[in-house]
């Protein structure tokens, strides 16, 4: 038997999500240009939700701060790849970055660099924040997001300010994003079943009992936070290369609430939850968009008035929670019903 740790390796819990996300990408992604784009965005969001799952889901510590890591990942990846004249123009006021304007790499190296820098930033901030838990941690991480946002938005020596950075090269091949998502699933899965991952879950389940077993809560949380920062940075990097532009506003409240909601509605305790939450929320949004335009959904026309989409999405959101109040996946990993197996 293969062993990542104390928990048995489960074929379906690793390959299930990979197969589902691949199948969706294949089928939805090729229907139309617009659905391909939404698929790409969804893959970016999924990466972010995975990042949140690693930390928030396993440690039980709420974080509103991951937008900072996405922001940094996105900014750096955007800066490393944008055309030199655009960079020069966008950063006219920016002495700090002027020197870096000529630096130029390809998208993939840029993604890696930006994720590493995000992870580093997560480790740095985490070394202070990981002493907190509960709502205090939630607010402290929110404060982190607030500071990052405020500084990048206002300080033109560091960030681009309120202006957008255009013409960032895009990844047009959805399968590359899919590959990154699949790799992340593997990483997150292995982390979750590893000794370290289980130790982290133990601290979530009972923060008083864990130390009695020699578990250093601070240390395991910090490691998870750093990994989570890496994935969040990667998600930001992917996002900037799908959107083709960088804007500080993209990583603030809306982004934070949306991704966190995806995780929690899906069920924060498992990889399946992260997956289902992302898919369900994105799908509802897309279906409603199509209904608003009176586009057929599997041949059926169901029209809703223009502008009503947003209300219905939010209502659906609440309805899902009322229906399954501990998340769609209910914190459990899935098991294939026995009659399927043989």
């Amino acid at each position: 038997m293969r062993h990542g740790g104390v928990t048995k390796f489960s074929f379906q819990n690793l390959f299930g999500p990979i197969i589902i996300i691949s199948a969706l990408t294949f089928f939805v992604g090729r229907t139309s240009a617009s659905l391909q784009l939404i698929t790409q965005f969804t893959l970016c969001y999924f990466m972010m939700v995975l990042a949140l799952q690693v930390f928030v889901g396993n440690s039980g510590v709420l974080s509103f701060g991951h937008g900072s890591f996405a922001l940094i990942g996105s900014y750096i990846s955007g800066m490393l790849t944008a055309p030199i004249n655009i960079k020069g123009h966008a950063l006219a006021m920016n002495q700090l970055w002027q020197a870096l304007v000529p630096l130029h790499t390809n998208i993939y190296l840029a993604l890696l660099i930006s994720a590493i820098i995000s992870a580093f930033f997560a480790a740095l901030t985490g070394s202070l924040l990981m002493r907190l838990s509960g709502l205090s941690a939630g607010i402290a991480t929110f404060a982190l997001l607030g500071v990052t946002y405020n500084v990048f938005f206002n300080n033109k020596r560091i960030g681009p300010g309120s202006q957008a950075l255009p013409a960032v090269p895009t990844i047009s091949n959805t399968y590359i994003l899919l590959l990154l998502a699949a790799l992340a699933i593997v990483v997150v899965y292995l982390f979750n079943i590893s000794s370290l991952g289980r130790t982290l879950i133990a601290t979530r389940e009972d923060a008083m009992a864990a130390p009695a077993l020699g578990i250093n809560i601070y240390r395991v949380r910090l490691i998870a936070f750093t990994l989570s920062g890496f994935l969040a940075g990667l998600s930001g990097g992917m996002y900037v290369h799908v959107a083709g532009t960088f804007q500080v506003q993209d990583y603030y409240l809306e982004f934070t609430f949306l991704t966190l909601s995806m995780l929690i509605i899906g069920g924060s305790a498992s990889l399946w939850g992260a997956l289902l939450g992302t898919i369900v929320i994105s799908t509802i949004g897309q279906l409603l968009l199509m209904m608003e335009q009176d586009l057929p959904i599997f041949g059926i026309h169901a029209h809703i008035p223009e502008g009503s989409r947003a209300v219905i999405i939010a209502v659906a959101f609440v309805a899902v929670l009322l229906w399954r109040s501990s998340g769609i996946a209910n914190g459990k990993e899935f098991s294939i019903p026995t009659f399927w197996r043989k």
Partner: protein
Amino acid sequence: MNKKAFQADQVSKSFGALRVLDNVSITINPGEVVGLLGPNGAGKSTFINILAGYERQDGGTVTIDGHPLDGLSPSARAKLGVARTFQSGRLFSKLTVAENVALGAIGLGNSAKVAKERTQSILEILGIEKLSPYQAESISHGNARLVGLARAVAAHPEYLIMDEPAAGLNEDEAPRLIHALESVTKNIGCGMLLVEHNVKLVTDACSRVIVLATGTLIFDGDPHEALKHEEVKSAYLGNAGVH
């Protein structure tokens, strides 16, 4: 001073004006099973919290093998061989029984393989190996206590501190617990401190008892002696006797 022993020396603790522990000194030798008795509010839980690093004493020192433990966190103490169980079980409810127990070993940095082996053998010794795939939240109260004990034992501690392990246990479970304790001592030879209100259990399992009353140590010696001791009787047992 015994080099290998777990010792508390002149430990005292107050909460505000309330003196909960007053210069309490005890020694637990390797492999020794010591009972800790005392009326409600005597300071027993506070004392073991201090030993395990969950609370900080105002004065005195706690040492293991002569190393002072003062100022060390619970996890650091666990690494030095001090394990504890909790009055209320405190299992990791979403994890399986096997994972719970394995974490006892993993928390101290043992490999997954070692953890797995230990888990299996401990669960077997306690006779609850069938429970291993169940989620901890779904097992009964009595079994949960045994799992908690197994989890602490999986660390192969030098000293094991237990807070009322038999509270709420059925009368047929209590002997199982004693049996379990005995096999643990035999297997890994750790010293134990057992806080319990079930006097029968204490006299059956322990070779020595300590009695605390309002923060002062009033007895340290043979369990059967304790039952006859006047001060112990008036402070703790009353005329209710042993059930």
